């Protein structure tokens, strides 16, 4: 049977605000356990939450970036369940009046956009962290009360790859907004997936599985791919799908059932009476909208237009906000007319240096000016393209300037005709056969002779000039 895969994603993002969502505790991931806490985020009796305006503003910015409608009236609700990492045994969240609804973002496959609906984006608080050690379970409440936003997509994703693309684009937008670290390994971005299969052509949704415990985008994709196979096989066998929550085991590469729908919790949501309903007025929304930075898709279009870049090149440059800023600055101050040359450096040697170091272009230890200075040496014919790549690598490692390194390694190409002429004379004397060959019309012999000159100059001779000098010398005589 042919099935269509239907996927919806729930993404939780920790907002990188200065303080927690409902108290004044500083957020600092480097601190020792239970040192960023106070009676409020520890849920001590008698304490009360007061919401953090910075967190609300960040959440609204995210909602605007994802084209959501911001709700005029919103409120916080309590989600009740017992767990030792939850100090109050309820989580302050939003239930029936979320901050925003009905947004979307685009993913691109073969340059074709596909619109993925966003059901809702709401604000809530994070729980603490359980640490299991030597048969003991310890709780660190530093994380308890950190503002989270939950971004829930529509079931508009039809393959694990689309889910992966959605996450990549989502992350890129959030990074542009500068409101979250978006680091899945550190847990500042978490993703749960709902997946079901239906007969191709059917409009009815199948029985879904909720997948948890993925800690990378690739993990999400792998877990979904596994699930597609598992569900298809089960359906082919005529088996009954049960609605359940399954955990991804990255090591074994399988999903394992955690609980079925019957075991689902009743969270007894109700409006949090400690936090009054609030109003988000249009002025506030417009003020925040004006503060939105240029988002990846807009920047992509602009780069293509302004710098005549291909979509492929532009996409690489805008994939990270910092790289886009670095690249645009390089392109702007690059003195040459053909900006494409600069772009080739960025997406060629520089990107491969970044990839091999597993960092972003902008995180490489090199300034725009130094990079352009290096390119200048090549363009003036003072060093070869090949040695320039080596210099680039050394610049990044040592932090030294291009000039310093080129001089240190004696890489300047010899373009001095007098000096080159001497070498050419000796090469002619030592290779009379090739000289004769050239003169008798075997033009290939010239390349051999150029090679000999290069060899004699230990590679420093400018091959272009050597070629010109040689051919003039041999034809003149």
């Amino acid at each position, binding site marked *: 049977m042919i099935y269509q895969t239907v996927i919806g994603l729930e993404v939780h993002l920790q907002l990188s605000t200065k303080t927690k969502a409902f108290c004044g505790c500083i957020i600092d991931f480097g601190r020792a356990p239970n040192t960023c806490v106070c009676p409020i985020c520890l849920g001590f*009796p*008698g304490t009360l939450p007061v919401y953090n305006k910075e967190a609300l503003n960040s959440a609204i910015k995210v909602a605007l970036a994802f084209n959501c409608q911001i709700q005029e009236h919103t409120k916080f609700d309590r989600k*009740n369940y017992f767990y030792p990492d939850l100090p109050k*045994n309820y989580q302050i969240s939003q239930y029936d009046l979320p901050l925003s609804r009905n947004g979307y973002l685009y993913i691109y496959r073969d340059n074709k956009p596909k619109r993925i609906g966003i059901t809702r984006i709401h604000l809530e608080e994070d729980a603490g962290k359980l640490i299991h050690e030597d048969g003991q379970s310890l709780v660190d409440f530093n994380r308890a009360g950190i503002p989270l936003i939950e971004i829930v997509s529509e079931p508009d994703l039809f393959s694990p790859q689309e889910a992966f693309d959605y996450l990549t684009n989502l992350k890129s937008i959030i990074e542009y907004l500068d409101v979250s670290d978006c680091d899945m390994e550190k847990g500042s971005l978490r993703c749960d997936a709902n997946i079901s299969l239906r007969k191709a052509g059917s409009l009815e949704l199948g029985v879904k599985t909720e997948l948890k415990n993925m800690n990378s985008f690739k993990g999400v994709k792998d877990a979904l791919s596994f699930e597609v196979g598992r569900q298809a096989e089960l359906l082919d066998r005529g088996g009954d799908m049960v609605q359940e929550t399954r955990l991804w085991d990255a090591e074994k590469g399988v999903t394992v059932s955690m609980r079925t729908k019957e075991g689902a919790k009743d969270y*007894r*949501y109700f409006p949090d009476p400690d936090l009054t309903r609030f109003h988000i007025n249009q002025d506030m929304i417009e003020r925040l909208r004006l503060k939105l930075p240029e988002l990846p898709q807009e920047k992509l279009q602009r780069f293509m237009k302004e710098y005549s870049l291909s979509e492929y090149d532009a996409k690489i440059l805008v994939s990270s906000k910092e790289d886009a800023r670095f690249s645009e600055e390089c392109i702007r101050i690059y003195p040459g007319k053909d900006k494409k040359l600069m772009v080739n450096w960025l997406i060629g040697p520089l990107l491969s240096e970044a990839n091999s170091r597993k960092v972003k272009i902008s995180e490489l230890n090199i300034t725009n000016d130094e990079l352009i200075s290096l390119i200048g040496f090549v363009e003036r014919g003072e060093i070869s393209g090949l040695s320039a790549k080596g210099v680039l690598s050394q610049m990044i490692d040592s932090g030294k300037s291009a000039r310093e390194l080129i001089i240190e390694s004696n890489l300047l190409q010899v373009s001095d005709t007098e000096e080159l002429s001497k070498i050419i004379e000796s090469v002619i004397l030592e290779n009379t056969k090739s000289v004769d060959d050239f003169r008798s019309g075997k033009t290939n012999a010239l390349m051999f002779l150029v090679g000999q000159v290069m060899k004699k100059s230990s590679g420093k001779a400018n091959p272009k000039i050597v070629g010109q000098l040689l051919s003039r010398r041999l034809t003149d005589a």
Partner: protein
Amino acid sequence: MTAHELLVRLKSGSVASEAVQEALYARIEKVDSKINAYVRRADFRKNDAVNKKQGLLFSLPVTVKDNICTEGLNTECCSKILAGFCPPYEATVISKLKKAGAEIFPLKANMDEFAFGSSTENSCFGPTHNPWNLGCVPGGSSGGSAAAVAADEAIWALGSDTGGSIRQPASFCGVVGLKPTYGRVSRFGLIAFASSLDQIGPITKDVEDAAILTQAISGYDPNDSTSVDQDVPDYLKSLTKDIKGLRVGIPKEYFVEGMDSEVKSVIEQAVNKLKTLGASVKEVSLPHTEYAVPVYYIIATAEASSNLARFDGVQYGYRAKSDNLIEMYKRTRAEGFGDEAKRRIILGTFALSHGYYDAYYLRALKVRTLIKQDFDRVFAEFDCIAAPTSPTPAFKLGERASEPLKMYLSDIYTISVNLAGIPAISIPCGFTKDKLPVGLQIMAGSFNEEMLFRVAHTFEQNTEWHKIKSSL
């Protein structure tokens, strides 16, 4: 002696604060073994250093209900589950009192566990006795605070009122009790029963003291999102002794079957007194009154079930021994909570459960709005409402302990005020034949505490009820 009388003497120097404090401790030592208004009496002498603070309140000690957090002093809500809990922070009302110059000693008053009750019988420290008749309850849940004030073993006290917990014990003990407008006084540091209803207020010997204490604790608090940023008027200015021409409404729904006939006639006399003082009195209707008790017990228990979830043995308070987490939760809560707390947690959990939420909680919220609108309509035409505080005088200890429904009906006249968020005061207005006090309740529109003080003070200054003391 009232606080304002003491303040005059402290100011003039004719009485020293040490002497006031010594006299108070002596009185507590003499009578509290009979009343049991205070908890953890062993702590009393811990804080011997007497500070002579000037300030408005001249180091006058304030008795504090055990659900209001006092930094460095145990705050246990008279529950085993909070045994040993000593908050490292204090309630905003306590900070405000200190700022005004009051002294906070370990004078923590008995109460129904987590304020669940109308008799102060549900306390892990045993019941408090009514100073007027030791065989009777003092009312509740702020029974310790009210009994202490009535027995002269407190100068004044703070209570909390979720459905009548200040006014009903004030009525039973023959003292003054005020529940301020919701949002007038910060709830920060008040261990929550039902967050949308709770409000801290004074229990005092007369109306002037109530005005002074309300003045000291009122005002916006950025740490409480539900407190309202509105200026606090000078309440002493409303103690005018003049109510000529005021329009007073008498809700007909409050004079119905089940009301004690003696209470009824005392209240009728009190209403007549208001008339003779120049008020124009008319019957009014609060048509949704009959729904107040069920609506209250859905909303209050729902909120309580969630508020009390944090008492799980993980971080503080009582923890039962167990070798796994779920067992630890279960045993801690089974052993730590009293019966009434368990009953309310179960009721509230049920009301919020999937499939019942719409029928109970959501509907209760809607009826709450109707109840509020009843009051809005009346206050559009009337300055205040006068009514009984409780349908009966203080009842016998143990009499209603096994009948929760009957106990819940003790709050029938006080609950609507909390649901509507408006302020109300209970003042002594007479006695039954058995010498049990009866309270007159006056209600006004939101943030109109001034009206309460004006009417209550005028009534009080023209009657002698507040001067009559128990024979204790």
